[in-house]
Every structure is written in C-alpha cells, then in structure tokens.
C-alpha cells in the first residue's frame, strides 16, 4: 500500500508537468484548431533557458537563496519561451492561416525539427546536468515526499488558478473564447483576432516555460531531444482530458502521469511509453471528445 501511495505521489508530480505542457496544446488547438507540434520543443527551450539562467546566477553570485533562484529561472524561462513561441506563430503559422489544414501542421513539424536542432547546434548534444537545487525530503508515514514534488504541485495549482481566472473572468479570456467559437464573428464584433491568437500562443508558451523549469529542477538534467516525448505525452493528456478544455488538460496530465508511474511500478518500465501511446489510441478511437470535452458536431 505504501508503495502504491508513493508511486501515486510520483505520478502526480510528473502529471503536473505534463498538465502544464498540455495547456499549451489545448489552448492553441481550441482557438485555431491546429496541433502545435513545436510546443514540446518550446518546453525544452524553457528548460534550457532555466538552465542558462541558473548558470548565470551561479557565475555572478556566490550563493543565491534557492527560492529566489527558482523565481529568476522561471521568469527567464517564461520570457524566452513566450518570445520564441510568439515569433514562431508570426513567421510559421500566421502566413498559413486560411490555407489548407495540413500546411500549419507541416510548418509546426518543421519548427519542431528546427528548435531541437538549433539547441543541439548551439548548446551541444550532451546531457546538461546541474547540482540538485532542492533536496529536502519529508517522511509522511513511511512515504517520502520531497520538497521538489510539493513545489511542483503547488506551482501547478497556482498557475492553473491564474489561467482559469484569465480565461473565464477577463476580457482577454472572453476574446479568446469568442475567437474559439467563431473567428469571423468575433472579428466582426471587434475582437482583434490576430492579437488574441498571438496572446494564446504566448500564454501556452509561458506555461511551457514554467514546466521546463520544473522539469529541470525535478530531474536535474536536460538535453536537446527532451522535447519530443514529453510533448507527445502532453498532447495525449490534452486529448485524454478533452481537447480545448483547460481543466481537462490538467486532469489528462495527471492521469497520464499516474498511469506512467504505476505502469512502471507494477508492470514493465520498458513499455511505459507503449502504455501511454496505447491509451492515446484507445481514447481517440472510443471517445474522441475526451473526458471533459464537448463532442464535435459535424456540420454538413
């Protein structure tokens, strides 16, 4: 039982990271109906930005309080991923809006290749390890919960609350929801559609930046190819929860994290990715609208 709870805790931590990345997929898919394939690599970029920020801090100051260091890393990662995703949307997706559906998917795949290879070329192909930043571990009735895990879950909850508030309670969120429902009508009613879409990309990227920082802090290592697998899993999470739905993305992320860690614990660690991908396939085949998503109505 303790083992089970321990694995559940680990799974929830991992799931929080997936959930944060999944928000970026789900928001972009919701608003313009495209799979932003490069989003996983934007997440990787966030991890690298955090890594470099950490190294700059370490180079300038002898010792920095961990909380402050984390905040700075997160801020740098958010700025970097936002800037990159904004630019990517501008040069690779916006010119193709209104073109056929496959076109932005192809540029997104192209951008994904560009981002991971850009980091490989500029930062080198090797693993980038850092010294553990947060190493405190609490023992709760035989289950060890590390401070890292608590931090990740808390930050996820905070970010989700902020995002939920933005989407549901601000005029920006209203513009986003309007654009999602009917782009042309929203434009006619005075919503700046291009700007709204740009902001959506920036918001998704900001969360990917936070997730990248958390990923770096949790595993203490990152590498240029880290974007693909978490990216696909986060997309799976977004689909599982119901694409277009913010709580769905988080729920899906948590489920994927749980499945992955429990599968590794009780079955075989080699096939944990197979389990995730199979779930993706099964969900899409039997319930394409996901857990919390609305079923798509086909217009003839």
């Amino acid at each position, binding site marked *: 039982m303790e083992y089970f709870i321990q694995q559940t805790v680990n799974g929830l931590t991992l799931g929080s990271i997936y959930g944060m990345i999944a928000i970026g997929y789900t928001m972009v898919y919701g608003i313009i109906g495209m799979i932003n394939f490069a989003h996983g690599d934007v997440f990787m970029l966030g991890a690298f930005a955090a890594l470099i920020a950490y190294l700059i801090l370490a180079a300038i100051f002898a010792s920095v309080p961990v909380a402050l260091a984390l905040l700075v890393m997160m801020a740098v990662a958010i700025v970097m991923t936002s800037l990159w995703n904004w*630019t990517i949307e*501008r040069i*690779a997706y916006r010119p193709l809006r209104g073109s056929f559906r496959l*076109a932005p998917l192809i540029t997104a795949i192209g951008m994904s*290749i560009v981002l991971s290879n850009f980091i490989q070329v500029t930062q080198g192909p090797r693993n980038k390890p850092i010294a553990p930043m947060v190493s405190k571990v609490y023992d709760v009735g035989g289950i060890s919960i590390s401070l890292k895990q608590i931090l990740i879950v808390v930050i996820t909850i905070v970010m989700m609350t902020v995002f939920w508030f933005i989407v549901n309670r601000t005029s920006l969120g209203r513009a986003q929801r309007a654009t999602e429902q009917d782009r042309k009508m929203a434009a006619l009613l005075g919503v700046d559609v291009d700007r709204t879409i740009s902001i959506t990309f920036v918001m998704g990227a900001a969360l990917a930046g936070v997730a990248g920082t958390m990923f770096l802090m949790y595993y203490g290592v990152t590498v240029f190819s880290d974007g693909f697998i978490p990216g*696909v899993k986060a997309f799976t999470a977004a689909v599982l929860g119901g694409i277009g739905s913010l709580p769905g993305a988080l729920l899906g992320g948590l489920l994927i994290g749980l499945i992955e860690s429990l599968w590794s614990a009780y079955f075989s660690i080699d096939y944990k990715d197979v389990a995730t991908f199979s779930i993706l396939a099964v969900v899409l*085949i039997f319930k394409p609208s996901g857990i919390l998503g609305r079923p798509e109505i086909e217009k003839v």
Partner: protein
Amino acid sequence: MAANTTNSPARPGSLVGQALREAVFAGLISFGMFVLFVGLKTDQNMRNELVLTQRWGLLAVFVGVAMAGRFLMVAAVRPWIAARKAERAARPATVAEAGPIRRNLHYIAFGALVLFPPVVVALFGMQGSLKFVDNFGIQILIYVMLAWGLNIVVGLAGLLDLGYVAFYAVGAYSYALLSSHFGLSFWVLLPLAGILSAFWGVILGFPVLRLRGDYLAIVTLAFGEIIRLVLVNWTEVTKGTFGISGIAKASVFGIWSFDVSAPNNFAKAFDLPMSSAYYKIFLFYVILAMCAITAFVSIRLRSMPIGRAWEALREDEIACRSLGINTVTTKLTAFAIGAMFGGFAGAFFGARQGFVSPESFVFLESAVILAIVVLGGMGSMFGIAVAAAVMIGGTELLREMSFLKAAFGPDFTPELYRMLIFGLAMVIVMVLKPRGFVGTRQPTAFLHERKAISGSFTKEGHG
C-alpha cells in the same frame, strides 16, 4: 526574422523608413531570442560541471542577419513581389502549349536516371561513383518510393498518416529476420515483406476508421512509436537497439551473387576487378525499377474505380458514403497499398544497409516523408520526386561541403546543420508555396479535354 505584417501602401520615401523601423524591431526580437542560446554556451569543465562560454560575436552575427534580412524583405522583396503580382494580373491569362520537352518530362527524367550510373562511372571511375550512386541515387530513390507510397494514403485518399515509417520498419525487419533465420533470398522476401506490411496497414487501419484529420494523424503517430518501442524492447527477437547486422545481400535473381566468397560472384563471373560498386549500381537499378512500379501502379490505380473512390473520399466523405461507396474498404485498401510500398522500400533498405536498428525508424523519418509529400504537392507524382531530390539530395550535399571547413574553421561540421536546414526549408517552402512545388493537378475524370487544375481545388481530406 520576426514578421511584422503591416502592409501599408508603399511610398518610396517612407518605405526605407518603415524598413529601418522593422529592421530595428526584428533586431530587438532576435536579440531577445538568441541572447541566451547563442550568446552563451553551456560547456562541461574538467570537473564535469557546467560552465558558460561567451560568444557575443556570434550573437551579433545572428542579430545582424535578422536585421538585414528584415530590412531587405520590407524594402526590396515585398515591393518586388507586389509589382510582379500586379504585372501578372494586368496580363491576360494565356495557357502556353506545353512543348515537347515539357510533355515528355517524365520519360526524359526516367531515361536520365537509367543512364545515371554509367555516366557517373565514366566520369569518376568505379570507386568514385560509389558516393554518387549510393548516397545520392539510392538514398533519394528510397525516399521517392516511400513518398509515393505515402502519397496514396495522404495525397489520394486524404488520410493523414504520421506513422508511415512503421510500415517501412515492418518491411525492413521482415526481411532481416526471415533472411537470417530461414535463409530466404531477397527476391522471395521482397513480396513477402510487402504483404506483411500491407497486413499491418490493415491491422492499424482498422481501429482508426472512424477518426478524421488531426486525430488520425496523432493515432498513426502513436502506432508508429509503439512499433518502434516494441522493436527496441523485444530484445529476444529484434536484438533491441543493437539491431540486426549481417543481413544477406540481394542477388541478381540467384544467378550472380555479390558475396565476395560466393563462387558465382558477379565480378568473378565476368572477370572484372573486385569492387563494391557493382552491388550499389545493381541496387540502384533495383530501386529504380521499384520506383517505376510504384509510379505505374499509383497512376493506374488512380483511374480505376478504387482510385476514384479514394479521391472521392478525400473530397467529401459524407457525399461519398451517400453515393454507396464502402468507405471501410476504401480506407483500408488505401492503408494497405500505401503500407505495401513502404514494406517493399523497407526490405530494400535492409538489403542495402545490411543492418537494421530501431534508430532508422524514428518519428523524424515519418515527418520527413510526409514533408516530402506535402512539399512536392500532394497528389502530384512529379512534384514529390522533385521534392525528394531537393530535400534529401540537399541535405546529403551538406555532407560533401568540406570546403566550408576552410571558411568556418576545422571545428565546423556541416552534418550537424543538416536537420536544422531541413526543418527551416520545410517551413520556408511551406510558407512560400503552400500547395507544393507543383501547384497543378491532372484530374482523371474530365469533360472533353484534360486540363491541369490548380492544386487549391483539391481538398486534403478530413478522414
């Protein structure tokens, strides 16, 4: 770098000012984007700790290029494009009669390919020809075949498949395993690999019949990854990441062999000096023939009832169903036939490399093949071949550019930039020509006379 899409009418005086403003803006954005990733490099020092190396000169180059590019874009390229468009619109639309070269382009291209190996051997000698025949000829033709196979699924039936490499893997592993365990020859296993792949096409196609568009793409991606992960982890059979090596070579229908020790060795039989080039040239003709068969079959299928059904399915699935077309068999045949060609190419790949490992069947390969199909212009066979030649040949060319070492110092390895440039090319070509290199399609059903139509009239399918 950063696109600012303000299309104010161009007055010559303000144009330069606007271009300058946008160039400064692009400079700021690119400075922000690159300051951490280009300006600083993470390196490991002697104690295995990460340290930062500073590269401000390189950063300045990046920002400078972005600014200059943006300036030229706004000040020169955009007005030029606008002027050209206006000029074209002013001219009455005339359709030039296709000349004899243009009309027979396919045959000319095929003939040139047939003559390619002898010409290369004559120019560079036996050993010198290896590089061209193998790295360029065979490599490009494998991708042409894969892309034509995928074109049946994506271009004709409109089913977006992101896991096509799975069938390539099935073909390659079928050949590798069956030839090493049962000693069967290439010519027996080639059709068998195709059949097995087609079988997998049906198995994987069956559950996704109800899915459409992006969802289909993601599930096929998942299937592709599952197959790769099984190949990695099922070590008793596939030897995992080590891969299977020592795969038998293909022979000339069992008459001559290319094994050095065999008594019926090709070179010995004709009293020729020993060289590995014969095998490569032989393989070149094999893959050329396989490509020709693929092209022939897809062109013929297109004007057969099943091909018509595929294209109808691509245009409108609901209309298709209400006209009594069985969409289940239509989709499954598309998957199966597309997969079959992937399997053929896979078996060929195994025979050519003599080694297969899961490394060769990553998602990136699927993405590259799909990119070739889309960049060539979905449904246009010739465009796809051109796209394969440009994209694969172009990246292979980078390997050869050792003279760049002289320009950028001995540490410069052009191979590293291969995929980076490939990705950039994908984005740029797509943005400039969303309908691919060949923007016209030849309909198979027409009234009175066959006319090429614009690619924008064909849909890309939802299912």
